[in-house]
């Protein structure tokens, strides 16, 4: 009767598989996914039927084929590899072993495979075993167990195969083994399978190469990464995966400091698959690094448009090769690194706006920032699948930069509205006073509070500036006062515990604090000047200079004020001193400026009449004063 059962099962398997093959050829539309699901359910039921009886050498080949079909259908239907597939294969292996040598104890999959393959098997088992071995290889590759795959495939090889020689580089062993794996022909098979083994082998090869390439890239072994990725690119894969490979290649070349090659690869990737937007993203970043603002902006705008447009699903299916397990299922997004991630639209917007601001394109910057703010508030976010490891900006900083761009565009009211938002949010977080230890790292709460203080004071600065330029000087004075009050809350201390440590934890923040204070004092001074209170103005300027001597324009302002107040001798002596220190101060300031955030630009620019003219005037007056003094 076993013969009859076998025939029945064989027919059932063939019916199911031919039904599937007859319907459609691609597996991407949902109805097909449902069909696959049904197909899987039927096959699984058949497998359970077969596995209900004890294993016999005659039924084992069919059982393996049915298992193969069922697992592939399942993976393809649900789109991911499940842990239970490993268990299914292990169970089947135990049954195989039970036929030959009963009394198999629980072993890991790898050990089971070794026992099965070393123990010899009948010739009609060869093809199914190879098939299932290929499947197991795919499952292990998905879990990145490369060594196990290598061992498995090498035990599938015949002894006279060339891959068994040992003088191959470690990275290429797996590929060599895969290449040398001769799959027994399936022409004599009566059971239909959903994916031919040759295809599976090729897919494995591509996936292995790709995976190893990515790992090498992450480990910064760039030459071998490039080789592997090239190897992968030349073998069987879909265009989407190929685009990903090219993106990775470009990334490698970028790291090797060959920007042109990198750009070329990325262009190729885009041509293959215009949805591979990481390539655009990387190109934009490269342009920025090269200083080519135009190209960068263009790339970013393209990227943004592409991200916002709805992604057509149908287009992918036409370029998809029609097998059920492709490389993308094996080399899933989890193992792809930052190289192939495409950013979210708002980040792209942010990059665009930021580069506009940095290059002082006020109008564009303002527009982009406003778009960005609207985007952030929008309910419908198109999220990205993977988080972007690029350091992302803090939202208050985004707001502040937006305000800065608006100030640059002279849209004072809008700038003030944006600052109000920041102030409203940070108000609750600011404590009464804050003591920051320079020598020890502070807990996250204190760091956050410090940030809040800095942001809030920057916002007040913006508001003060805007009010001042709008003509409301009294309000401006109030705002600057508020800013100073906030800044005064912070105290940097040295507990002296970590004196041997060289790094100061909060040096950037401290510097920024000083700059902010100085800017606030100077701004207030300016307002007082506009209000006609010159003495107060002078006091403020002096305070500002005390805090940050290198602040541009501060010294000259002071000189100017002194002169206006009639204290010419003081002015003269100060000017002399200043001339001597000018270079060193400029150097100091240059070093400082690098760390300052973008949104402080309006304040550290030149608020006063042109530096040069003042310098020229002062030079004349200096000569005057010198001549007076000499007299």
């Amino acid at each position, binding site marked *: 009767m076993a013969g009859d059962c076998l025939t029945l099962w064989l027919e059932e398997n063939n019916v199911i598989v031919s039904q599937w093959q007859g319907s459609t050829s691609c597996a991407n539309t949902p*109805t097909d996914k*449902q069909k696959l699901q049904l197909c899987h359910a039927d096959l699984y039921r058949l497998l359970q039927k077969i596995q209900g009886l004890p294993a016999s050498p005659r039924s084992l080949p069919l059982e393996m084929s049915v298992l193969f079909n069922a697992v592939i259908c399942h993976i393809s239907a649900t789109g991911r590899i499940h842990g239970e597939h490993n268990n299914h294969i292990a169970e089947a292996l135990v049954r195989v072993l039970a036929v030959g040598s009963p009394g198999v104890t629980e072993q890991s999959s790898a050990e089971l495979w070794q026992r099965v393959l070393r123990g010899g098997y009948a010739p009609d088992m060869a093809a199914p075993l190879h098939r299932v071995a290929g499947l197991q290889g795919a499952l292990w590759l998905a879990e990145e167990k490369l060594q196990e795959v290598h061992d498995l495939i090498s035990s599938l090889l015949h002894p006279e195969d060339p891959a068994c020689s040992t003088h191959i580089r470690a990275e290429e062993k797996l590929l060599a083994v895969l290449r040398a794996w001769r799959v027994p022909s399936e022409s004599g098979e009566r059971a239909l399978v959903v994916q031919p083994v040759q295809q599976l082998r090729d897919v494995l090869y591509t996936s292995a190469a790709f995976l190893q390439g990515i790992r090498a890239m*992450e480990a910064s072994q760039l030459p071998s990464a490039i080789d592997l990725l090239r190897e992968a690119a030349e073998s069987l894969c879909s265009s989407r995966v190929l685009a990903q490979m090219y993106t990775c290649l470009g990334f490698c070349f970028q790291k090797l400091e060959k920007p042109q090659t990198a750009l070329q690869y990325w262009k190729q990737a885009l041509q293959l698959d215009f949805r591979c937007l990481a390539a655009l993203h990387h190109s934009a970043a490269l342009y920025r690094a090269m200083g080519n603002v135009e190209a960068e902006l263009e790339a970013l705008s393209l990227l943004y448009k592409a991200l916002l447009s709805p992604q057509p*699903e149908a287009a992918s299916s036409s370029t998809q090769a029609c097998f059920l397990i492709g490389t993308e299922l094996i080399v899933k997004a989890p193992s792809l690194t930052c190289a192939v991630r495409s950013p979210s639209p708002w980040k792209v917007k942010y990059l665009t706006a930021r580069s506009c601001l940095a290059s002082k394109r006020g109008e564009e910057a303002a527009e982009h920032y406003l778009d960005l703010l609207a985007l952030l508030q929008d309910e419908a976010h198109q999220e990205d699948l993977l*988080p972007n*490891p690029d350091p992302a900006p803090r939202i208050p900083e985004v707001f502040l930069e937006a305000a800065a761009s608006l100030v640059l565009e002279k849209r004072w009211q809008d700038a003030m509205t944006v600052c109000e938002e920041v102030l409203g*949010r940070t108000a609750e977080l600011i404590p009464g006073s804050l003591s920051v230890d320079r020598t020890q790292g502070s807990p996250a709460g204190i760091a956050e*509070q410090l940030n809040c203080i800095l942001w809030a004071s920057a916002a007040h600065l913006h508001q003060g500036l805007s009010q001042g330029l709008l003509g409301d000087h009294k309000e401006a004075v109030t705002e600057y006062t508020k800013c100073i009050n906030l800044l005064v809350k912070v105290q940097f201390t040295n507990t002296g515990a970590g004196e041997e440590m060289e790094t100061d934890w909060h040096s950037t923040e401290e510097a920024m604090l000083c700059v902010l204070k100085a800017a606030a004092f100077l701004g207030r001074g300016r307002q007082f000047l506009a209000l006609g209170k010159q003495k107060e103005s002078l006091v403020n300027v002096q305070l500002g200079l005390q805090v940050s001597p290198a602040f541009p324009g501060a010294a000259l302002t002071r000189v100017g004020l002194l002169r206006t107040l009639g204290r010419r001798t003081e002015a003269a002596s100060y000017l002399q001193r200043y001339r001597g220190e000018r270079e060193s101060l400029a150097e100091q300031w240059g070093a400082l400026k690098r760390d300052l955030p973008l949104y402080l630009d309006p304040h550290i620019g030149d608020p006063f009449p042109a530096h040069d003219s003042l310098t020229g005037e002062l030079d004349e007056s200096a000569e005057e004063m010198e001549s007076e003094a000499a007299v």
Partner: protein
Amino acid sequence: MACAMPSVQYLAGFHCPAGGLAAHGAQLIPWKGNVYVSIGKSVYEYSMEKKCMLAVYEFATEIWCIELDTKTQQLYILCGQSGIYLLQWDEKGRLLKEPMSATSTGGVNIFFIGVEFCCLLDPSICYFTVCHEVLVAVSMNQNKWEIRLFNIRSSDHKGNYPSAIREMEISVKPTPGCRDICKGNSLPPVLLCVSLWKKEELAVDFHEFTIEPSLFTFLFGIDLAMVNSPVVICGFPDGQVVFFPLKTVPSPKSDFTDNQTKSSTRLPLLYNLEQPVVFLGATKAQISDGENNPWTNSSNKLFCDCILLLGQGGLMVTITAGNKAEGGTYEFREYHLKAPVKSAFCSGPNLYYSTCSDIQCVVIPQPGADLQNRILSYSSYNIPMIRAMSPISCCSEGDKEFLALSDKGKLMLFILKQSEDTAQRARLSCSQAGQRIKELLSQIASVSERASPLKSLIEQRNHSLLNLNKVVAISQAVLTSRGANMPVRCKVKPLWTRRLQQDCLVASCILENKTDFILESGWNLCIHLSTEGSGTSYSFSVMNLQPEENMEFIFPLVTEESEHLEFPIKITFALVYSLQELDKSSFQDPQSSLFSHTQSSICLPLQEHIIDILQCLRLKPHTGQPFPTTFHCMSPLDPVEAFLRSSGGAECKPGQPSAISKAICNAESNYAVTLVASVRVASVILHRALKKEDSDTSLCSLLFHWLLSAELPLSQNPVEVHGMTPNGREFRLRVGEVSAYDLSPANPIPATEVQIISPHLDALACLHLAVIRRLQILAEKCNQDGCISPEINLDSIQKQVIARESLLKEVKSLLDNLCVRKDLSFESSAKKRLLCLYKELRDPGLLLL
């Protein structure tokens, strides 16, 4: 403390799968006058206004979770091992897609929902929620929880969702208190979506939780606050509570490193309860002075200022904003509630939670209150076995309504009067408290008064039932087995005792209890003696006869009516149980007895025994000696003799028997006629019956022993025995072997003859009948076994029969004449003739073959 019961309305009962609702089993979502209840494999839509079921949706596998998208009124259903299904209705309430099949019974539509309604096919999902157009699905993968987000709006034409827009992972941290979570989904995770409160929005939506800005900013960071991103808080069965924003922005709590290769973000841990998380909620705990009744301000959308985490072991953690002077801090406070918590909801400053045995309500302490008391005082409603609860949007005047689903699938509506709540919060003054305590104590006392007699009554009833059970068991045992294996047996033996200087014959009955039960008090042994004329009965009560024990009862054989003993005496035994024993209260009050006096007993007939005269004979120990004086029986035999005995002794010297008494004693030798009666038995019969393998004893002695087994010791082998009947008549008994010729003159049949010799006719007749009866038994038994009968001459039998018949006719005519004619002379002659006939018949006597 218990508070007033809420008013409960039973709305509907749903079919509950066998064994009660499973862990995922039940959920209810009220929405605009309807309730969606999910139990087992079905979702029921029930209308609270019309108080009837509207529709039933049946699914293929068990439903683990349902969610209602309030904006579009779509119902999402998670079917275990299958995926997420979506039900959409149009304005008229019809399903947008056609289900597989639909039936209608009793006005209720039943729809069978198949795979075409599935929008997310993934068997690994174990929980989900829908908020802000994002579907958050949680699945378990080996040792990790995977959270995936899907964009609802971007479903394709077939209604399926493409791949997830974001994936996050968090690994399971088993704690010692939690069971093995990876195996099976014992408890699903809990998801709560909170968003930032905005003053401009006035829509009151019960399912959306908005948190006040300061708490939101403190907890989740300023970035999320500025972007207005809703945040989803997840509680897992291993106690971890994490959160993630729906909009991807960086927050200071996550750490991004440059070398991050894994896609999974490490979700920031909010808290670890170390017990399975059962409920996450947000509510407004602080009541400022201006709003004394939060329920009347329903027009303003209230923001929540407190987030609650509730664990199954009774740990409640509240997260509130901390002291503003210190900047952005927030506080965690732990409180302990009664475990195990099954479901909960919060409304206002109250948290209602259900344990297995109760629903309790605690007041969430105000955020600024001190931390002294970790255990909150609660009020309980005494409603057990509630599986799921859900508040309904509060209605007028602050009566709180909530729906609850019990373990057996019953839907109930609870209405809590608002006044009760405020009463709880009012503090009692001392005198009021005292008064209240007094009232409570008196209530307790009255209740206990009522309770104790009831309790004793119940105990009594139990006892009676126990006894009844025993009685019935014994009855069954006795009635079902009759014959030799009777569980209750009686053995009877006649005995001679001495009572009041006279010998009397009594019977000793031994009652054996071979059952497994104790025959306790209430059982009586009823003994009924009946002779031909009359009968008496005695009744003994059986007190505690243990199994395998015997009890002996002795009762006289002489009935009261006649002083003479008439044999044979038939004795029947029966066990009787009076059912009045069961009702002990009838002893105190006969009127209120459950059983009427007359028909209230159980009667179990036991055996019947027959005592015949042969068992009651008293034999002389040795022949030739006079009878011992003790043998003189109770009643005098003859008035004349009695007179003579009594009178003759006066003149004698003491110690010497008088001559007259001697003469009287030797009366038997003075009688002219000794009557003889004999019975013959074929030896074959005796062989069969009495002979054993090893016997050198003769048949005669065997027969003697068998007939007189009571009195004759085995060692003796007499040929003739002297004895006295119970009535005082002397007799002699002789056994011998003869050959019977009268039936077959040619071949004599060997037979054994029993001769009874006595001067008294009545004794003779009695003994004769008794012997005949005994031997008849033997003969019948032998005939049943199939004895070979000896050859008989039929002629001789015929002759004998004719002879006997003539004699019989004569007897009859004489008797008739005696009755008719009252002639003395005739009488005496008739009597003499009768006597002659009697003698003839009796000697040689019957032959038994």
